[in-house]
């Protein structure tokens, strides 16, 4: 494990190496201890200003980033596209350059277009953290997912992970595939064939069409949300049919003769990918993921800011 990141922006898991990921985990473990203290704030980033640019709706990620920034004592400005000059026709790089000229040190970017953060990193001189770009990557989500699994399983090397659901539209799926593979896990995807990318095998990932078989194979089931907002056409006959075939419910879990870990990045479509009895049974690690999200984002911003 090195003592600094090999990158100066966090654009995707694709650009990180295993040593970077372990450094982020190690730092996040220390921050997790900090945020469980009575006084949860540290002064590390007190002279850093961070802009949260959210061009797309977000609850968890936005709150998590903002909380992480405040815990690190950074100055924070929030921007959402609905109440901005984007509606007047300003381009992305113009908007960001204007914000940066107000002496902002780091930009957290959520954008509906795949590659938006890479485009920005190529065109402006600032530190960029990708908080989700279209169907491309969502690196901090993948880091917090793998950090949570690492805590539960002590390591991911050799573990079997099934990612279930809308792989085609999911940035979490792609980032998770990268991070799980880099940490040595075996990954399969499961879901309706219409929601599986054609060249998924090129990522070193197998496709398993049957959820019951997939569950019997895996140590971890990573359930994804069906991204209705990104679908321009119907990819499966009905939500009821999807839930029956690919939704995880108590019945399917009871058939298993082993314990598996269930993750979900949120927000959940209750009754579609996960049934309410599974969510409320306490058998998932969804809330651990949310808690770890703050620590992971603190670690990412701390490590990137130290390179500024």
């Amino acid at each position, binding site marked *: 494990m090195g003592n*600094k990141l090999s990158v100066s922006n966090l654009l995707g898991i694709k650009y990180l190496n295993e040593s970077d990921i372990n450094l982020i985990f*190690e730092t996040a473990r*220390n921050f997790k201890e900090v945020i469980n203290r009575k006084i949860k704030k540290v002064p590390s980033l007190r002279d850093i200003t961070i802009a949260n640019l959210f061009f797309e709706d977000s609850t968890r990620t936005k709150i998590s980033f903002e909380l992480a920034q405040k815990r690190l004592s950074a100055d924070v400005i929030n921007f959402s596209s609905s109440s901005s000059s984007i509606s007047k026709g300003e381009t992305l790089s113009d908007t960001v350059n204007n914000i940066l000229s107000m002496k902002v040190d780091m930009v957290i970017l959520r954008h509906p277009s795949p590659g938006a953060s890479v485009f920005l990193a190529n065109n402006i001189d600032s530190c960029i953290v990708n908080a989700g770009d279209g169907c491309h990557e969502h690196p901090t989500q993948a880091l917090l997912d793998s950090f949570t699994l690492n805590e539960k399983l002590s390591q991911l090397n050799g573990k079997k992970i099934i990612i279930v659901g809308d792989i085609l539209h999911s940035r979490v799926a792609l980032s998770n595939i990268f991070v799980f593979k880099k940490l040595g896990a075996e990954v399969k995807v499961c879901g309706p064939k219409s929601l599986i990318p054609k060249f998924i095998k090129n990522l070193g990932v197998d496709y398993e069409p049957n959820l019951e078989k997939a569950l019997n194979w895996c140590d971890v089931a990573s359930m994804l949300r069906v991204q209705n907002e990104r679908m321009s056409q119907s990819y499966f006959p009905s939500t009821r049919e999807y839930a029956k075939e690919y939704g995880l419910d108590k019945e399917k879990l009871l058939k298993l003769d082993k314990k598996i870990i269930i993750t979900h990045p949120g927000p959940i479509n209750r009754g579609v990918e996960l049934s309410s009895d599974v969510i409320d049974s306490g058998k998932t690690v969804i809330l651990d993921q949310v808690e770890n999200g703050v620590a992971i984002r603190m670690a990412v911003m701390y490590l990137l800011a130290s390179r500024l």
Partner: protein
Amino acid sequence: MSVDLNRKILDASKLTLILDRLASQLFENHNDFSNTVIIGIQPRGKILSKKIKSLLEINFGIKNIKLGFLDITFFRDDFGREKKVLNANKTSIDFIIENKTVVLIDDVLYTGRSVTAALSALQTFGRPSKVELLSLIDRRFSRHLPIQPDYCGSQVDAINDQRVMVKWKETDGEDSVYLYIKNNGK
């Protein structure tokens, strides 16, 4: 003429004497440690604080001394100013320090900035009634801040290019203290 500036300033036998003395001084002031806790500053104060605790137990029969380790990385004032990234160590303080006397332990007191960061970090665990500082080595005349140790093993006068390295058998193979020129071996 060349002068060898890498030299051993304390050996194992002298260190043993010093540690015994420091433990005695702590015992004199804190008696049974019922209202006092020991906190080693990570990373280099950890071993020293463990040694002091075990000496208090062996030499004076004190039991149940509370010992914690405090990492100060996130509270340092040189974030982003040094070229190297500051990597954190584990903090483990599983007791309350509210209204307790805290003895902070570190191996070398140099500019006083680590101790200042430790005082800030300590506040996140409560409000101690009193904080004392124990340093094995006090590099007097090098302070940037008005910090002085309450218990001091040995005072060293060194120029700014020199570094003091405390070595422990457990991690470095020998109990000793060296004075050396920065970027020059040892």
